[in-house]
């Protein structure tokens, strides 16, 4: 039999104003197991806590019920108090009589009644509590960062600077991501390459960072502190360790018609190429879909001209297996496909382009050396129409588009408009918007400069139709402030397409058992208080894979994720949560119901020998929970049809006892 002490907190007037705390303390005194009960003004204070310690000693208490605020607030406080007093911390139960009682009731009679009921339920549970001890597991002091854009680069650098080895996996042939494709960056208009490429070099030169480019994660096993990951490094047909990046092969290759993905297919490169001049690693790669040597065994020019013999047509994919303590996802974003937006004639006219294509067109290293010309005829445009929110902020039940705001388009469109007016002042620039959203440091000032100093025509309203006719794009739009229809003959139309998570994120999330929202953005453990962690322990979120973000925000989040990783890797061992699921092997029939609902991949199956009543032995498949991975959510205990699964600290019996106490 337990010896339970009940401690009722006033929380100043927070609880005491709507709950008669003294009556609560009196009412529970005769409950089974209760040997002591008291009320006090601030139970969490130093004095309150010593009162608990003293009571434990004086009355030889074995269990505690604290009637106070939410366990989210002070459960850990009182568990420490219990430990100090010499009882197991899991012998403490909190009856939440503040958030779930005094704060929501106005009537003191009703409030008191409910507080008494909640206290009785907690007492009933403590009667069945058993001491629990946390298990320990070792931490592998190495981190994996998935995605080599600015988010992944920043996270990798910060973790590596703290002294931990980092593997940076990138699916493309070079790191750099979307930022490498941008021209200028808002709100300071410094060039993206000038601030990004030094960081890429830092990554390449860092002794703690290994770049695994042209690779993808194939399999993830294990748990926080002990992930085991398989990475497929795809063949690039060039030996990375030998290639000097001289680029001779990329000039001599006879296959000149390979669409250049880095320039969004607006020009071509050879079948062997280096994605761009500042690529890291600066190593050539062969596109097997276009190389005639790889396709029909004829050519071999690149191997002939390579002075170091780096070309290897026989190269195969390589599987890298490694253990990691923590994983950072930085898989980034892509603009949506504009297939379903043909009212803007994207597929009908070459002169209707996306904002990312515009970045390449104005970039000095782009396909036009930075000359803003129409892709159709190479002429300079004199009237440019920018359309914002293409696919963003759509109605919840709309057939196409995203419900969310893509967040970066208002600012980059202002930037584009300003750049055009700066370089070509005789160009008329129109921007159609639903709202202009510029809440960032120096952001609104930036947008206002576009309107006030650069004379960009901002029009509230949307474009309904773009009609290519001859050399012009007839833009039909509405001006909501003037309440009239507009017809503008434009030379170039730029669409600010919504952004969406990269397609690789969904399969990765499945491998990591990390949760995602309906838009395939990774969800965070808490939207406000734990924004860079996934609910799955040991997985951290960096950049736009978690939601639309601009560069400053991405970098902040990347560093925050790195700080969390460093905090984890600094530990030698990890204490687990002892409230984990346990399976009763005798009752388990191996049906897989539990593993199917487990969000964390904590349940595996093993075949075990069981002795039958007739003294024979039989092999049976039974569920096994990995306590280091289990988060104690309880899904499996509900799903188990035979009642074999139970949750330590929240056993079915304990929950039923609570329910009984409430219904009595």
């Amino acid at each position, binding site marked *: 039999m337990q010896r339970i002490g009940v401690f009722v907190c006033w929380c100043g007037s927070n609880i005491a104003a709507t709950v008669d705390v003294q009556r609560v303390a009196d009412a529970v005194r005769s409950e089974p197991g209760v040997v002591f009960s008291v009320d006090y003004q601030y139970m969490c204070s130093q004095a309150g806590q010593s009162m608990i310690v003293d009571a434990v000693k004086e009355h030889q208490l074995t269990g505690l019920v604290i009637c106070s605020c939410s366990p989210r607030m002070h459960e850990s406080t009182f568990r420490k108090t219990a430990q100090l007093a010499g009882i197991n911390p899991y012998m403490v139960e909190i009856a939440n009589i503040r958030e779930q009682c005094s704060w929501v009731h106005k009537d003191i009679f009703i409030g008191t009644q409910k507080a008494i009921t909640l206290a009785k339920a907690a007492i009933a549970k403590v009667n069945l509590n058993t001491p629990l001890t946390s298990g320990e597991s070792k931490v592998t002091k190495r981190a994996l960062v998935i995605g080599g854009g600015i988010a992944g680069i920043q996270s990798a650098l910060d973790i590596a600077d703290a002294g931990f080895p980092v593997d940076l996996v990138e699916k493309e042939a070079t790191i750099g991501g979307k930022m490498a494709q941008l021209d200028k960056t808002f709100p300071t208009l410094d060039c993206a390459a000038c601030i990004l490429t030094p960081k890429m070099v830092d990554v390449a030169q860092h002794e703690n960072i290994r770049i695994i480019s042209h690779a993808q994660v194939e399999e993830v096993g294990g748990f926080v502190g002990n992930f085991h990951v398989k990475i497929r490094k795809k063949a690039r047909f060039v030996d990375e360790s030998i290639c000097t990046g001289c680029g001779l092969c990329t000039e001599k290759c006879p296959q000149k018609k390979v669409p250049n993905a880095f320039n969004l297919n607006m020009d071509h490169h050879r079948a062997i190429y280096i994605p761009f001049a500042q690529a890291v690693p600066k190593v050539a790669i062969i596109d097997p879909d276009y190389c005639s040597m790889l396709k029909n065994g004829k050519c071999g020019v690149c191997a002939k001209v390579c002075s170091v013999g780096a070309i290897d047509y026989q190269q195969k994919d390589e599987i890298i297996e490694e253990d990691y303590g923590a994983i950072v996802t930085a898989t980034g974003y892509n603009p949506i496909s504009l297939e*379903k937006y*043909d009212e803007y*004639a994207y597929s*009908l006219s070459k002169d209707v382009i996306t904002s990312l294509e515009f970045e390449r067109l104005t970039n000095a290293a782009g396909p036009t050396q930075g000359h803003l010309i129409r892709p159709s005829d190479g002429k300079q445009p004199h009237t440019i129409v920018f359309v914002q929110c293409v696919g963003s902020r759509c109605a919840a039940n709309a*057939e196409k588009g995203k419900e969310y705001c893509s967040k970066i388009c208002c600012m980059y469109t202002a930037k584009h408009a300003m750049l055009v007016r700066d370089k070509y002042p005789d160009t008329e620039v129109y921007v159609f918007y639903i709202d202009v959203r510029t809440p960032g440091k120096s952001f609104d000032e930036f947008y206002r400069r576009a309107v006030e100093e650069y004379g960009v025509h901002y029009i509230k309203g949307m474009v309904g*139709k773009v*009609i*290519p*006719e001859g050399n012009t794009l007839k833009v039909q739009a509405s001006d909501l402030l003037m309440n009239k229809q507009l017809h503008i003959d434009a030379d170039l139309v730029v669409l600010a397409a919504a952004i969406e998570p990269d397609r690789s994120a969904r399969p990765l999330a499945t491998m990591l058992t990390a949760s995602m929202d309906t838009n395939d953005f990774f969800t965070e453990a808490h939207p406000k208080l734990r924004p860079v962690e996934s609910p799955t322990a040991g997985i951290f979120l960096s950049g736009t894979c978690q939601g639309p973000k601009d560069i400053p925000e991405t970098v902040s989040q990347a560093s925050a994720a790195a700080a969390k990783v460093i905090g984890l890797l600094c530990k030698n061992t990890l204490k687990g949560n002892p409230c984990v699921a346990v399976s009763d092997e005798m009752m388990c029939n191996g049906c897989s119901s539990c593993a199917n609902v487990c969000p964390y991949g904590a349940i595996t199956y093993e075949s075990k020998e069981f002795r039958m009543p007739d003294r024979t032995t039989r092999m049976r498949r039974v569920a096994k929970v990995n306590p280091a991975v289990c988060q104690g959510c309880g899904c499996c205990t509900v799903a188990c049809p035979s009642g074999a699964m139970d949750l330590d600290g929240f056993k079915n019996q304990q929950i039923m006892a609570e329910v009984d106490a409430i219904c009595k």
Partner: protein
Amino acid sequence: MKVSYFPGCTLKTKAKQLDDYARSCAEVLGIKMEEIPNWQCCGGVFNTSSDEIATKLSAVRALSYAEKQGQPLISVCSACHNVLKQTNHAMQTDAVFASRVNHYITQPGQAAAQAYMGNTQVYHYLELLRDIIGFDRIRDAVKKPLTGKKIGAYYGCLMLRPSSTMKMDDAENPRIMEDFIRAIGAEPVIYAMRNECCGGYVTMEDPALSQKKSTAILRNAEANGADFLITACPLCKYNLDKNGNIPVVYFTELLARALGIVEA
């Protein structure tokens, strides 16, 4: 295969070719179109007023007849097709509306004494060609391909919208008529205005407005190199014919030519 057929008023008067060729082509392609007996005017676009059930009764009677026959319901005219599909959608998803309509049509003395249960599938004739017959089979059946002809498909507004109900094609980037043009051996001309409104019935009240809309469509088609346009809608044909010089023909006529049913 047998299908129920709802021709509509205009196809019996001004747009007789649309109707005739639709029937004869279907026959060649192995489909028997059985005209619904005693069909009534669908009510045109006027019945899209949502608070009135009386205007929808004609469509429900047609749907109910096809249900009784266990046949899909085919129409050729864009407006009839729009009314039939929208009414069918309302009968399938709006229980209150459905019970009011069914209560009415099952009154003693009414022609269709049977309630409509929402089981009829409505197809536009183009959908019949694409989904039931298949453009591949049409390509094989073509005897006189219209090789070298540059044809602009004119969809208009009613055939595709609202796309959540019509479920025929992408309203902003449709391809069903272009695929049809390819199937009969001609070259489709894709132009942006192909799914814009011609002005519709507004032509009776404000002919200048529908003239403005129609000329913009014709100019855009011409600028993109179309020799002539095809349509499925008698009203669109009326407005376009009145306001421009590019010939506008019914798509069924071209199909009949390609299948060798009529001489060009």
